[in-house]
């Protein structure tokens, strides 16, 4: 049953990816990308990775779609048709070959099967990480850990440096957008007041910046 559901979801994802590659309408592509994220979030749920699924649904299907739509307002709705250097089917052939090669490697008898309990990752690494996470986070505590969600303890404490790095990455992204697109506190205010003057002159409301469309 799980296998059938997985296969169905993966088939939907393949169809969605194909449609994204085919369409020239950027609005349609944005919406399909959101659907793609939702599909892979469902796959993550089936793989018992609820935290990852949650992140994928919130970030991939939610906020990314909105930010794409915001960017879409600044450009055309249609992608310009452009000539590929190696023809339309050259890159396609390359991608199919690469995918076939990846699938071929999984057919190796030495590779563990999908969901194999005897896979190296399941056999040695996962229990080690789980034990280490509990031992270090709940050090000296009589109850091994006060925090049931091992994903949270691993991310926030056992791998605290990694997560700090991730937050700094997001910080850098925000600062980068501010520097490039000029939303700085003082500069933005000046620009906005200037725009408002222009709006009054042309008889436009100051809510013209509302992102609705």
């Amino acid at each position, binding site marked *: 049953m799980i296998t059938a559901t997985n296969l169905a979801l993966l088939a939907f994802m393949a169809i969605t990816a194909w449609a994204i590659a085919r369409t020239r309408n950027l609005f349609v592509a944005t919406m399909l990308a959101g659907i793609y994220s939702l599909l892979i979030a469902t796959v993550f749920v089936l793989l018992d990775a609820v935290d990852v699924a949650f992140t994928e649904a919130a970030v991939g299907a939610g906020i990314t779609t909105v930010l794409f739509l915001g960017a879409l307002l*600044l450009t055309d709705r249609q992608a310009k048709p452009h000539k590929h250097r190696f023809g339309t089917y050259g890159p396609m052939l390359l991608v199919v070959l690469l995918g076939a090669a990846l699938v071929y490697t999984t057919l190796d008898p030495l590779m563990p099967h999908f969901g194999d309990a005897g896979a190296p990752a399941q056999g040695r690494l996962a229990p080690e990480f789980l034990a280490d996470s509990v031992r270090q986070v709940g*050090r000296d505590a009589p109850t091994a850990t006060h925090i049931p969600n091992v994903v949270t303890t691993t991310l*926030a404490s056992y791998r*605290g440096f990694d997560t700090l790095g991730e937050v700094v990455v997001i910080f850098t992204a925000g600062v980068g957008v501010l520097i490039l697109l000029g939303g700085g506190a003082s500069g933005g205010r000046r620009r906005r007041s200037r725009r408002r003057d222009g709006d009054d002159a042309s008889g436009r409301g100051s*809510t013209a910046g509302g992102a609705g469309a």
Partner: protein
Amino acid sequence: MIEHVVLRVIARLLAPFIVLFALYVQFHGDFGPGGGFQAGVIFASAFILFALIYGIEHARQIVPPAVAQAGIGLGVLIYAGTGVAGMLLGGRYLDYSVLADDAGHGQHYGILIVEFGVGVTVAAVMITVFFTFAGRRGVLEAREDTAVPPDGDEER
């Protein structure tokens, strides 16, 4: 979209619940799925929904850009500051065990504080990025108004 009554009412109705859900995900991340990253995004989405319906200027009055921009740095400071606090209390950097009398509670406090820092930065960055993107529309429109009369969104 402020002229659509249904959208306007529903957005105003949903926004508090979205914020509540974000807070639940934020502070329940140690027991259930969730944490700062997801909570920050959900928190920001409430304000983005408001901005989509009521316009960017209204949303800017609720969350002034300066506040959102301060939040970007504040979250990282909370996270890194927790590590420094652990050092001052005699532990290693980002070792939360020394934050309370016993290690278990110390870890719990540390994780909650650190996740809060993550949530603040993520929410602030998402709101700021959206404001910046959506605000540019107005800049471009004003420029086009003075230069060429715009004829629709397509085929400029």
